[in-house]
């Protein structure tokens, strides 16, 4: 995604002032080196060090794999992120299909409703879900008032609440990537199938779904990575009863002040994210290869 700018022809032939070119590049490089590259290096170094004596050790990693809590946190993070990815893609698909195909004047409204919450910021939306899901919140209050339940249902401070909150946070991004993909499918294929007598259901099953697999994959990947690295929503909706890697890292740094171990957890999260992105890139290149092979055969 980042190479678009570079493959397009540059505006102007390279000017002779190469040195001034490097000079204007310097501030960005300096800032990123001091506040990104060096900190990342320090963090990786710290993960191999004893926090007190600063002598090299593998104990932090050993602890991560043996204390039971950390791997459980990693597992919870993965389960939560997979659930969010699936929910976002399933909920986003009908809306994306509508946005991609509709010509009606309601389209703009649906588009605004689907994407505007993104501007509201994560805290406001998470706060909304807190009010709705809390023990004394909107839903429990209503059910108790109606006499349907005697004691509040456990709707907050658990996996359910975090998945609901994160699905809400990530949904606009899922809808955007699905919409782009569905827009790329030729609508004539659907029309042709319908004319030949295919039912709506078989058009969906045999044409739309298979052709939008790339969009589905990218929606799943975006949602997974966004969910796995989210901090505020799991912190507020999961609380102390449902901890994921992001909130555990925060605790290690600010409460236990165990930097080496915090570094290991951060690296675990980073590796999980990079692995998922790598799968995505490999899927993309494979698909690209298959397509160019097919075109090669056709010509």
């Amino acid at each position: 995604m980042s190479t678009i700018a570079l493959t397009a022809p540059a505006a102007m032939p390279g000017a002779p002032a190469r040195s001034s070119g490097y000079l204007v590049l310097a501030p960005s490089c300096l800032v990123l080196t001091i506040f990104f590259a060096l900190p990342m290096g320090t963090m990786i170094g710290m993960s191999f060090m004893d926090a007190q004596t600063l002598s090299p050790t593998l104990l932090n990693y050993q602890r991560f794999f043996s204390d039971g809590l950390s791997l459980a946190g990693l597992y919870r993070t993965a389960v939560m992120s997979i659930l969010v990815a699936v929910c976002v893609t399933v909920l986003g698909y009908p809306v994306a299909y509508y946005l991609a195909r509709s010509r009606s004047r309601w389209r703009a409204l649906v588009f605004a409703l689907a994407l505007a919450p993104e501007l509201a910021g994560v805290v406001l939306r998470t706060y909304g879900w807190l009010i709705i899901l809390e023990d004394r919140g909107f839903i429990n209050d209503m059910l108790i008032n109606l006499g349907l339940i005697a004691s509040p249902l456990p709707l907050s401070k658990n996996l359910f609440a975090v998945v609901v909150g994160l699905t809400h946070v990530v949904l606009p991004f899922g809808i955007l990537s699905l919409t782009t993909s569905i827009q790329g499918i030729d609508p004539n294929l659907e029309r042709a199938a319908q004319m030949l007598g295919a039912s709506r259901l078989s058009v969906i099953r045999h044409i739309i779904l298979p052709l939008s697999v790339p969009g589905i994959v990218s929606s799943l990947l975006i949602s997974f990575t966004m969910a796995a690295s989210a901090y505020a929503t799991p912190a507020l909706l999961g609380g102390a009863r449902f901890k994921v890697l992001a909130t555990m890292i925060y605790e290690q740094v600010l409460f236990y002040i165990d930097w080496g171990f915090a570094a290991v957890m951060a690296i675990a999260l980073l590796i999980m994210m990079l692995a998922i992105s790598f799968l995505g890139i490999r899927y993309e290149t494979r698909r690209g290869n298959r397509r160019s092979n097919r075109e090669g055969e056709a010509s």
Partner: protein
Amino acid sequence: MNRVLTCLFWLAIALVLTFITLPLAVVVAASLSPSSAVTFLPWEWTTVWYGNLLADRWLQPFLLSVKIATVVAGISGVLGVLAAYAVVYERLPGSTAIMAGLLSPLSVPQIVKGVAIVLFLSIIGLQGVLGTPALIAAHVVLALPFVTRMAATSLANFDGNLDRAAQSLGATKRQRLQHIVLPMIKPGVLSGVTFAFIISFNNIPLSVFLVRPGDTTLPIAVINYLEYSLDPVMAAVNVASMIFILTVIFLFEKVGGFSAQLHGGSK
């Protein structure tokens, strides 16, 4: 059969849109509710909670957030344009690698960047800069790649013939930059800068490590408060900050941001 499917389709869309708007509606309702316990939909309403916004407790973090977001937008705007200019316009050797380096922070989760920065500052003995300076530096690292990418895309997409025409008519490089290149990429840069402002203003995962007591940004003040109380003041604070963000977007839009870019930036 087909009719059932169509009905299901509309039902699904309606449900998803309700799901998306519900929490926002609930927060707005809570901010106007006269009862201090945020429970049911209010049948009467009041603006009394909004009166609390001017208390130091919320005003200080708000002003700090605005200050930091403004500085971050300014710094990342300038640095991003310079970097994009060097890589795309001057086409320095090794631009692909340089660009990959400039965009690399995007592939690291914010919380990991936050840990890394706080560990680094502590190790080199600069815990003293936690608070505003550290927040600004961290937010710039976060925003800069986005601004660089938007500026680079604008630079790569604009019609180079305009520039060449000006050159053949004898315009100096300085004149071309001032009268052609900068105006052409202005919409892209402005949306990048707006974006930088918003991600700094709303940021939690980096700020949470870098704030200092008495030097807290608004979202952090809000989540700290939410840990022990859900009262309607929070709803008022949240609604007010959303209105603020929408105003900022509207103002930048007026100056020629998003929609100008959507129309191809060809003004």
